[in-house]
């Protein structure tokens, strides 16, 4: 029998070693797996490389993880926001390495990782600072830049519902990077609002098939059961 559900967020964090590369879902706070990030902070892994669209908002979630100074490097498209003061402080103090990647490349490099693509050429960023010193090629008369996959040791993502096989559905624009990150990590850990009976999710509506998912946890459900 396949059962990917784990009963606690602590259990969901097992095996995350120092030096891991972790893909963290979310666009701003929509789709950010807050409970999993809190559990990662408690778990204590350090020297991490984080891949996420933003570099934290306010003082919770990814920002709280950055505050622990256990993140060596962040790969993201849009670190600077009005509420990214935690990252801004670390960056200006030279305490975190930053790789800025155009958002489409960020998504496609993870898609490539998940799909077994060794590298790809894309016009995005040609002639800009972000493609400086990269291999380029003219394809069909257009300049392209060579881009390599981004693979995660782990992905931490948020979905709406899962079943015990790990099939996932998401909610509105909180879907964002979840499906692509799920494919790109060796171990994908999903925080959901609800774990439903196998067979409940409409197969036509499943967004992430369970083959891409290793662990599922429903933190809110656990919290409700404990009270």
């Amino acid at each position, binding site marked *: 029998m396949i059962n990917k559900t784990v009963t606690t967020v602590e259990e969901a964090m097992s095996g995350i070693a120092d030096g891991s590369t972790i893909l963290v879902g979310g666009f701003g706070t929509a789709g950010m797996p807050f409970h999993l990030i809190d559990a990662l902070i408690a778990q204590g892994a350090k020297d991490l490389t984080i891949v996420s669209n933003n570099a934290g908002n306010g003082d919770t979630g990814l920002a709280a993880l950055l505050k622990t100074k256990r993140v060596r490097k962040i790969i993201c498209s849009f670190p600077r926001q009005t509420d990214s003061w935690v990252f801004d402080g670390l960056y200006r103090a030279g305490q975190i390495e930053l790789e800025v990647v155009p958002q489409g490349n960020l998504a496609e490099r993870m898609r490539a990782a998940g799909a077994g693509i060794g590298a790809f050429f894309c016009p995005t960023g040609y002639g800009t600072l972000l493609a400086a010193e990269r291999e380029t090629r003219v394809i069909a008369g257009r300049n392209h830049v060579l881009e390599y996959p981004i693979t995660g040791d782990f992905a931490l993502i948020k979905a709406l519902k899962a079943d015990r096989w790990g099939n996932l559905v998401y909610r509105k624009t909180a879907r*964002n990077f979840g499906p692509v990150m799920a494919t790109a990590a060796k171990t994908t850990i999903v925080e959901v609002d609800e774990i439903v009976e196998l067979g409940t999710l409409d197969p036509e509506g499943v967004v992430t098939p369970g083959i891409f998912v290793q662990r599922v946890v429903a933190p809110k459900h656990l919290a409700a059961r404990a009270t």
Partner: protein
Amino acid sequence: MQRMNRELMAARVAADIPDGSYVNLGIGLPTLVANALPGDLEVILHTENGLLGMGPAPEKGKEDWDLINAGKQAVTALPGAAYFHHADSFAMMRGGHLDICVLGAFQVSEKGDLANWHTGAADAIPAVGGAMDLAIGAKKTWVMMEHVTKEGQHKLVRNCTYPLTGMACVSRIYTDIAVIDVTTNGFIAIELVPGLELAELATLTGAAITDGRNRKTV
């Protein structure tokens, strides 16, 4: 001259968006175009964080923070809307499926180079988001911006001095005083606000600009 305010600029851009277009509006000034689109048109707005068919902001108190735009503001989804993940969303841009994107800019060169993501200041934290993908991916990339900076510096220039977002990607510029096509022959003014002469527009433009007002363009 009758300089246009932001709402009039938005209305001017909106007037050129054909019925049935798929459009991405950049953060900042271009966002205003959404409010200026005539209600009888079906123009489908794309937001890169995973929604086609984006509607206006919800009433205060009815925000759903799982339903936001690229600027992370609460929005709504219109009947017929679709949600999708980031790789699909950027396939829509990079695969040339979007008809038009409207972006703000620091500078546009006479070759259509766009600078809108980074001031290049030594202490600035670089953040690009989807700007580079949008600039080169949409079928048409339009820029909407003030014609000169607050300090009177040129924004339409021979060569961008700010770091580039994309090369030779802008086809049209809507400013507060003119509409300009960017062609292989450089800037061509196709519309000037009342009271503005081409000679004055030329002094406000940092590269050669020719008169295209008799030229029919789309």
